[in-house]
C-alpha cells in the first residue's frame, strides 16, 4: 500500500549553488504525481531528495522537511539505507547490474535484506516481474541472460521489477521513458497506471503529454522553485500562473 508524501520548505544545494528554493507540496498516496519543467529546473534534484540520494553528491546539502508516511526522513531516527528500500527509484537511463542475470537483478534487493529462502526468492522474483509486465518475455531465460542483454525498454522494466521486489511504499521515477521508443514508452505508461494502485508514484517527466496521461496531480517547477501544483486537468487546461501557461503552451523549454 502506498503512503503520502509531505514536503515542507525543501531547499537543496550543490556546494554553494542552490538548486531548490523552499518547495512545499503533498503527493497523495496511491496516486501519481508528475513533476514537469524545463531542463535544469530542479525536478531531478527534487525527487532525489525524497529518497536521500541527493546527499550522495559532493557537498550536497538539504534543508526543510520531508515526511513520508508521517515519518520525517531527515530526522535523526531515519537510516537512509532503510529509507531507500521503502522509497524505490527508477532512473532515466536503465541501469541493471550487467554482471548479474535477470533473476539475480530482481533478487538483488532481497538478498541484501537477508532473504535466502530459495522458494521465497522465486516467488518474489516472479511476482515483481509480473508487476513490471516483463514476466512473459523473460520467464524462460531468467538465469541465463544477463540484465544488460535486454532491449532498452525491457531493461527499464527490469529496473522497475528490481525496485518493486523489496516492496517499497513509494516509487520515484526520474524520466523513466525518455530514452525509450514510443512503443516501449507506452508500455511503461500502462505500467504506471497499474502501479498507482499499490504504490505512490512520483514521476519526473519533460513530456507534458505523458504527465497528462498518467498523473492525477502535476507540479510545475521553474529554476528551482515550485510555481504551481494542482490537479493535472487544471494545470493543462486552466493554469493559474502565467509562467505555467507559457511553459505548457510551448513558449519556452
Amino acid at each position, binding site marked *: 500500500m502506498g*503512503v503520502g508524501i509531505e514536503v515542507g520548505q525543501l531547499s537543496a544545494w550543490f556546494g554553494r549553488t542552490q538548486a531548490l528554493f523552499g518547495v512545499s507540496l503533498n503527493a497523495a498516496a496511491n496516486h501519481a504525481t508528475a513533476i514537469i519543467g524545463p531542463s535544469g529546473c530542479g525536478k531531478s534534484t527534487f525527487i532525489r531528495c525524497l529518497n536521500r540520494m541527493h546527499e550522495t553528491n559532493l557537498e550536497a546539502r538539504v534543508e526543510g522537511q520531508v515526511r*513520508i*508516511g*508521517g*515519518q520525517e526522513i531527515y530526522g535523526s531516527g531515519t*537510516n537512509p*539505507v*532503510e529509507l531507500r*528500500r*521503502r522509497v524505490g527509484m527508477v532512473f532515466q537511463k536503465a541501469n541493471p547490474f550487467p554482471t548479474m542475470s535477470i533473476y539475480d537483478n530482481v533478487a538483488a534487493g532481497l538478498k*541484501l*535484506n*537477508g*532473504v535466502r529462502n530459495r522458494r521465497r526468492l522465486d516467488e518474489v522474483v516472479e511476482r515483481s516481474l509480473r508487476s513490471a509486465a516483463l514476466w512473459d518475455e523473460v520467464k524462460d531465460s531468467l538465469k541465463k541472460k544477463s540484465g544488460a542483454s535486454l532491449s532498452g525498454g525491457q531493461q527499464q522494466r527490469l529496473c522497475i521489477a528490481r525496485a518493486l521486489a*523489496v*516492496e517499497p*511504499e513509494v516509487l520515484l521515477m526520474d524520466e523513466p521513458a525518455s530514452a525509450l521508443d514510443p512503443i516501449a514508452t507506452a508500455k511503461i505508461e500502462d505500467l504506471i497506471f497499474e502501479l498507482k494502485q499499490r504504490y505512490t508514484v512520483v514521476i519526473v517527466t519533460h513530456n507534458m503529454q505523458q504527465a497528462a496521461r498518467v498523473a492525477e496531480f502535476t507540479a510545475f517547477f521553474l529554476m528551482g522553485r515550485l510555481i504551481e501544483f494542482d490537479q493535472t486537468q487544471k494545470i493543462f487546461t486552466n493554469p493559474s500562473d502565467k509562467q505555467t501557461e507559457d511553459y505548457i503552451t510551448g513558449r519556452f523549454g
Partner: protein
Amino acid sequence: MPNSASAYGSDYVRWRRRLTDHAATAAAALTTILVLAPLLAIFGYLIYRGAGTLSWAFLTRTPAPVGEVGGGMANAIVGSGTILAIACALGVPLGVGSGIYLAEYGRNRLGNLIRFTADVLNGVPSIVVGIAVYALIVLRQKHFSAFSGGVALGIMLIPTVTRATEEMLLMVPHSIREAALGLGVPEWRTTLSITLRTALPGVITAVMLGFGRIAGETAPLLFTAFGNQFWNLRPDQPTAALPLQIFAYAISPYDEWHRQAWAGALVLILLIVGTVAAVRLIAARGTVKGAA
C-alpha cells in the same frame, strides 16, 4: 508509519549489515596503514642510517680500500650520470619519435604492431634486457662499458616515453593542427613546433617519470656497465653506478661498506623522490594538459 520493513530484514539482519559496513571501512583503513607503514619505515631508516655517513667527503671521494674507513661514492654518482645521459640520448629521441609516429601517422596495422611491441618491451624483466645487451654489445666489444649500460637503460626508457608522447599528442585538439596547416605551415613543422610544443609539458613529465624509474635500475647494469671502484669518465670502459655500488656494498661483509650503502641509497632516493615530486608539482600547476 506502518513499518512494512519489519517484513524485511529482522533487526538482526539490519544490525549485521551495519556492522559489516563499519568493519569493511575499518579493514580498508587498516590495510592502507599497513601498506603505507613500510614506506615510512624505509624512508625513516634511510635517513636514520644514511644521514650520518652522508657528507661532502662522501659525495666527492672514491671508494677507500677494503677495511679502511671513509671514502665515498663520487665515481658512482658521476658514473650514473654518464650512463643516464647516454640512456636519455638514446631513449628520448626514439621514444618521442615513435610516439609522434603513432599519434600522427599510426592509426593502422603497423601502428598497432608498434604499440603492441612497445608494451611487450615494457614488460621485459630488466635482467633480461641486461643479458641481451650483454650479448649484443659487450660480447662484441669485448669489454664492459658505460655505453652498453646506457643502451640497456635507454631501451627500458623507450616504451614509457613512446606511450606518453602518443597520449599527450592525441590530447591536443585537432583544431590547433588545422589552424597551423591552414596558415601554410608544412606538416612536419606543425607537428614539431605546434602540436608537440603544446603537448610538451606532459611529455616532459613522462620522461622524468621514466628517468626516475631507470635511475634506480641495477640489474641491467650488472653485465653492461659492470661497476668500477675508480674514476672513469670514458664511455667505453666499465663504469661505477650508484645502484650497482649500493648492491655490492650491501651484500658485502664489511660494516663500513654497509654504512656507505645506506648513504648511497639516501642519495639515490633523494634524486628519485625529487624527480617524482617535481613531476607532481608541474602536474598540479595544470600545465600538463596540452591545450585547453
